[in-house]
């Protein structure tokens, strides 16, 4: 089966400093892959380059989603094609209720795809159902997005956005950071509920702990800007036991 996401020898720099250095990665439709690696390996950079954050310069290689060149598109166009990033540090949007934000985003994507905008009652029904599953109090969605939310609430809000926007490729950047064990379970259940044959996920994490909840099909080790090892779920356990040093040496 051909890959949904295909990253080929991707190199990228910020302020002239190379962060990604010939990274290659393929994720077939329906699979969940995890990327692990030490601080500064380029994990977050990979997520930003794939979603189009300004400031990163692609110096070589490419990336396609379902065969379509991603790097030529603006961030919002990539979103409409189905790219979603669950941020490690979700941004606060003062004065904009979460519901408004979410509806604006959904309709912008629908318009970009030539679909009709969702009617208000349908939207509310959809969000009520999805937020209940994530144990998010619906009243909270009337508050300004992420303003004054706890770390766990912010992460649940990211997953809610993912559930509503229904991306084809979701990147979860350290979704486990700052979560206590109960919140981790709720978030993971939310993510697992979104697994589907036509949807792929890239889970970025430091720790094996998250992968107990979100079982990946494959695990990759990222060090010094490229994938230095790939394997099944057991690779994560090896890493946990042996640390990243062995793999950092592989990258050198």
């Amino acid at each position, binding site marked *: 089966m051909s890959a949904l996401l295909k990253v080929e020898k991707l190199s990228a720099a910020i302020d002239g400093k190379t962060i990604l250095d010939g990274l290659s990665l393929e994720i077939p439709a329906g699979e969940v892959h995890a990327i692990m690696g030490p601080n500064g390996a380029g994990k977050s950079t990979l997520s930003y380059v794939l979603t189009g954050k300004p400031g990163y310069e692609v110096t070589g290689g490419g990336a396609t989603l379902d065969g379509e060149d991603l790097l030529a598109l603006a961030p*919002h166009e990539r*979103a409409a094609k189905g790219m979603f990033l669950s941020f490690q540090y*979700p941004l606060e949007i003062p*004065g*904009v209720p979460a519901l*408004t934000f979410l509806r604006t985003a959904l309709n*912008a994507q629908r318009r970009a795809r030539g679909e009709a905008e969702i009617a208000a009652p349908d939207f509310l029904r959809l969000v009520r159902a999805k937020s209940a599953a994530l144990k998010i109090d619906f009243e909270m969605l009337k508050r300004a997005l992420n303003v004054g939310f706890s770390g766990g609430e912010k992460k649940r809000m990211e997953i809610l956005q993912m559930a509503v926007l229904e991306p084809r490729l979701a990147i979860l950047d350290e979704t486990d950071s700052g979560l206590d064990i109960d919140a981790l379970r709720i978030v993971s259940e939310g993510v697992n509920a979104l697994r589907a044959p036509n949807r792929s996920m890239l889970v970025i994490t430091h720790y094996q702990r998250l992968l107990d909840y979100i079982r990946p099909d494959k695990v990759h080790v990222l060090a010094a800007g490229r994938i230095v090892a790939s394997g099944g779920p057991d690779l994560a356990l090896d890493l946990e036991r042996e640390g990243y040093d062995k793999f950092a040496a592989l990258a050198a």
Partner: protein
Amino acid sequence: MPAARQTTEQVLELERYKHGFVTEIEQDFAPKGLSEATVRFISAKKDEPAWMLEWRLEAFRRWQALDEPAWARVDFPPIDYQDAYYYAAPTQKAGPKSLDEVDPELLATYAKLGIPLGEQAVLAGVEGAPRYAVDAVFDSVSVVTTFKKELAAVGVIFCPMSEAIREHGDLVRKYLGSVVPVSDNYFACLNSAVFSDGSFVYVPPGVRCPMELSTYFRINAAQSGQFERTLIIADKGAYVSYLEGCTAPMRDENQLHAAVVELVILDDAEIKYSTVQNWYPGDKDGKGGIYNFVTKRADCRGARSKVSWTQVETGSAVTWKYPSCVLRGDGSSGEFYSIAITNNRQQADTGTKMIHLGANTRSRIISKGISAGRSSNTYRGLVSAHPKAKGARNFTQCDSLLIGKRCAAHTTPYIEARNASAQFEHEATTTRLSDDQLFYAMQRGLSQEEAVQLLVNGFVKDVLQELPMEFAVEAQKLVAISLEGSVG
């Protein structure tokens, strides 16, 4: 510049400022320039009583002795007061008695601007027809005022100022200049000498005005100034909500708009005054645009009287404007909610004065300034408590948002507490529209323009919600249009 490109740019500019068209209509002008003869000409045109002419002439004499203020943080070439027309009016016989008599060109102009002058539609129960009364001022004259009869039935007077001077002389004489004295400042003094039209409102004791009142100001003639004068009186226990809107054609020259608005609020009365100011701001290089030099003041003369000013300022090349509250009556209160947006080369120096004279007076200031392009946006405010203003309280929140790297935001608050029981709070923030927030919104599918709009609307939300419902939506769109092309 190649003609094709020039045309494209003009079209883009027109797209941005949708009210920039000119109405082709025959107009009467005063002879160009400013002299005692000009003042006499205007007074005669309006068929004013002798006392009004005397009042104007006195103002003109005083104005000649005054100097243009230089303290505001705005910069513009010297104004040649002799190189302008001080009176321009569509040629027509005596004031029209009904809509049928109004020049169709004018009706078409207001239709194009989206101003509802057809009260028949409302009276006939046409669905969706907004139900508020409009006084439409075109250059120096009011061309039509709607719903006058219905308002008169409950004792509310809503008419052009020139009509009020003729028909309600006692009320005008009693209150005109009682809030903003003739020689209060340079521009107010000029206005007192040459003011043309504006609205007059009187709400009798105990009456709650049954509908929103609004005045729509339009500058049309070239090389002319507009000097409107508005006076609103809420007698004891009365309530009125009033809104003004303003637009002008796009011209390369600068045009002066020097208005005076006076509000008088007696015991237990309340006035809510909203402004959506969208004068032509000039082009992206700062050519043309309106000089908006305006004096607005409310006198809370009575005990427990209330006033609130809400303003959305997006237009004008230069703005100099401080809607203020004199809190004279014990227990009176004043509010000021402001959104001031500057883009390209626009300059704004705007804010408010809360002058606490009576005991237990309260005031609240929420100011949201947004600067983009190469513009400059200054908040200037005064909060003062007189020795007798025991227990005076003020809360001020003053937020500035910067978009881009070449704009400026300034905050200049003056605070004077002359008694120990006054409590003043001042909070201020300055933030730049963050690239991270923009990216976050764009990652969810919003284009850059949509992301800026969403973030800015969030920033100004506290003020938008103070506007009457019909206008809040309009203002929200205006905010978006004013900031088009401000990022990237």
